[in-house]
């Protein structure tokens, strides 16, 4: 390591064209994680051995391995440098696994900031650089940890270079208001009501079982396996999804400067996400059942190149507006992403589709009833339930038929599609509805599928694949005439041919 290399932990200004070390918190954070993992995987198993010397062995092994890990992380930190050059970002690592990575600034799709608990204590930020994805970019191309003031400066200097933003960090953070007023009360409501209905019902069901079992236990019973199971499922399907949403989107703010959208949120870890509008492939207007009853929906975007170092999917499909009324959603659409606003004139599924829908419901009913009846028979045979109780279950299994046919009938009335000049959209869902609006220019492949239940009526379904940030994100239609669906692929090809598609607009 040469003397010219400077420690980013102590330098407030960006040294141009000079290699610098990451902040030392990288080595500390990695060492702490290793210490915890080694404690669980080495120390605890060793100390529980039936040997009088077990505590000594455990301590020695743990101390030795942790010390080695700390040394490796320190060594790696000392030998990894980042250089912000005139036209590219250069990361060089001179360890056993050598790395020499150059990322041209014009390839960068987004620069995001992520601050965890350790970062907040030590005053550091993680800069995440995402490039335009080829197949996917779930993981950022580079993650650089620096002092917060330096990280902010670099982010803003590069944003100016890449996006043309002229605002400094202070102005941006403190002066620019959110496009729409989103209070933390809205976020709490969003956390509860944006859950898919099936997940919410599952959570409520297991909450009910937990309460019943607890009541039974308090009345003199014992702690049952059912209570533990019900609590586990309640936490998995109820508590965790709500808490994750709440913690992630707390203090939510969204605004747009020129062609860049900025989203800031987070209760414990702070998320600063920014991306160019031309990186949005599709927007999804989602309205789960309960939220829809209250006249609320929320808006998400499908964006290319928004990888998160912690694999947080919420950063890959950023929330453009939490649960709000339609007027607020429209305000966000028109002010933040007017490119995706167009006059829709949707068409419902053709009348003939009812035959396909009912035939499908009949097939699904048959398979489901056969499966359920076989399970009930098995349960009676293994004496899990009594023969009398099984009769009730057999009758209840018939409700599956009603559910499938009701779902089919409702979907016939709800599902629609629309083909505009620059965008097309599909509305799907019965309980939870999703309106997906896609730009033709982002379509990669179009697949039209017909089967035995659709072919006789000239119907088909369409699956469109987009340039994605999360691997594969197909957009699927309902049952429409194959000719109507072929309009999508033909429009994509026509736009390429007549020049309406200009690749430069998406660089």
């Amino acid at each position, binding site marked *: 390591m040469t003397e010219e290399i400077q420690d980013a932990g102590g330098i407030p200004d960006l040294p141009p064209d000079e290699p610098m070390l990451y902040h030392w918190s990288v080595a500390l954070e990695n060492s702490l994680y290793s210490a915890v993992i080694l404690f669980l995987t080495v120390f605890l198993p060793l100390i529980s051995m039936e040997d009088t010397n077990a505590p000594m062995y455990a301590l020695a092994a743990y101390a030795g391995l942790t010390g080695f890990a700390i040394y490796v992380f320190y060594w790696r930190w000392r030998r990894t440098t980042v250089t912000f050059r005139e036209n590219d970002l250069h990361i060089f690592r001179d360890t056993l696994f050598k790395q020499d990575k150059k990322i041209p600034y014009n390839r960068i799709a987004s620069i995001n900031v992520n601050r965890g608990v350790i970062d907040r204590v030590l005053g550091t930020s993680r800069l995440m650089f995402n490039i335009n*994805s*080829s*197949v996917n970019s779930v993981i950022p191309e580079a993650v650089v940890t620096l002092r917060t003031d330096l990280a902010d400066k670099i982010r803003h200097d590069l944003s100016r270079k890449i996006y043309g933003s002229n605002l400094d960090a202070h102005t941006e953070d403190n002066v620019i208001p959110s496009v729409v007023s989103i209070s933390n009360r809205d976020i709490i409501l969003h956390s509860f009501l944006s859950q898919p209905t099936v997940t919410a019902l599952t959570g409520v069901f297991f909450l009910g079982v937990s309460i019943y079992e607890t009541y039974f236990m308090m009345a003199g019973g014992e702690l049952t396996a059912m209570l533990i199971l019900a609590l586990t499922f309640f936490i998995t399907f109820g508590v965790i999804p709500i808490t994750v949403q709440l913690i992630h989107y707390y203090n939510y703010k969204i605004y747009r400067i020129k062609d860049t959208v900025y989203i800031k949120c987070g209760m414990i870890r702070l998320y600063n996400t920014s991306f160019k509008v031309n990186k949005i492939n599709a927007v999804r207007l989602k309205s789960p059942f309960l939220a829809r009853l209250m006249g609320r929906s929320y808006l998400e975007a499908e964006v*290319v190149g928004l990888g998160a170092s912690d694999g947080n999917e919420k950063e890959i499909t950023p929330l453009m507006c939490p649960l709000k009324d339609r007027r607020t959603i429209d305000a966000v659409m028109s002010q933040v992403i007017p490119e995706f606003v167009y006059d829709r004139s949707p068409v419902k599924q053709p009348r003939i589709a009812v035959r396909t829908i009912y035939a499908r419901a009949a097939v699904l009913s048959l398979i489901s009833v056969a499966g359920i009846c*076989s399970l009930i*028979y*098995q349960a009676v*045979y293994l004496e899990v339930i009594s023969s009398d109780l099984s009769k009730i279950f057999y009758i209840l299994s018939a409700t599956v038929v009603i559910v499938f046919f009701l779902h089919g009938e409702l979907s016939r009335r709800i599902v629609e599609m629309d083909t505009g000049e620059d965008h097309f959209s599909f509305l799907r869902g019965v309980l939870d509805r999703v309106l997906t609006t896609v730009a033709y220019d982002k*379509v*990669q*492949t*179009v*697949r*039209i*599928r*017909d*089967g*035995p239940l659709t*072919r006789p009526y*000239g119907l*088909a379904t369409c699956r469109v*694949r*987009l*340039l*994605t940030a999360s691997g*594969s994100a197909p957009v699927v239609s309902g049952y429409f005439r*194959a000719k109507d669906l072929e309009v999508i*692929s033909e429009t*994509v*090809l026509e736009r*390429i*041919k007549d020049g309406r*598609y200009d*690749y430069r607009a998406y660089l």
Partner: protein
Amino acid sequence: MMASEDFAIGEDGLTKDGYRALEKRARAAMYVRSAIILAVSLVICGILLIFYGETGWDRIFLMPVPAVMIILAAYLLISPAIYYARYRYRIEEDRIDVRRGIIFIRHEIVPVERIHQIEVFRGPINNLFGLADVTITTAGGLAHIRHLERGVAEDIADSLNDHINKILKERD
């Protein structure tokens, strides 16, 4: 969507819409693949039956097994012929168009402009019959043209690569 007469191949080796069919040996390769899948399925089924016998459970639960195996065997026997008869592909200046399927017929369209990479792949069965698959990579996933005659696959890959390079050069 194509009616059955739309799959008919004319004297020029093309359908009336200009689609091409696969070589006959592609069908043989599909049969070999089916035979291998059937053999593996029978072995797995046999192991499951032996295991089930050990449990001493009611034999009524075994009733669906022969039915499933008969349906699977019939499917594997018939499907190569149908898949072969319905497999059609067309490569034009602006698009790659593939129609395929047995029960469900899929019509896949890939704009040439969206292609990132072309790969020719030969597995052991295809190798045996002098065939190859062309895998087309786009930013939204993969598309395939399967069981092509090896020379045809190489030609398609070369011409598509040339076309993509031409597009990229024009952009530079």
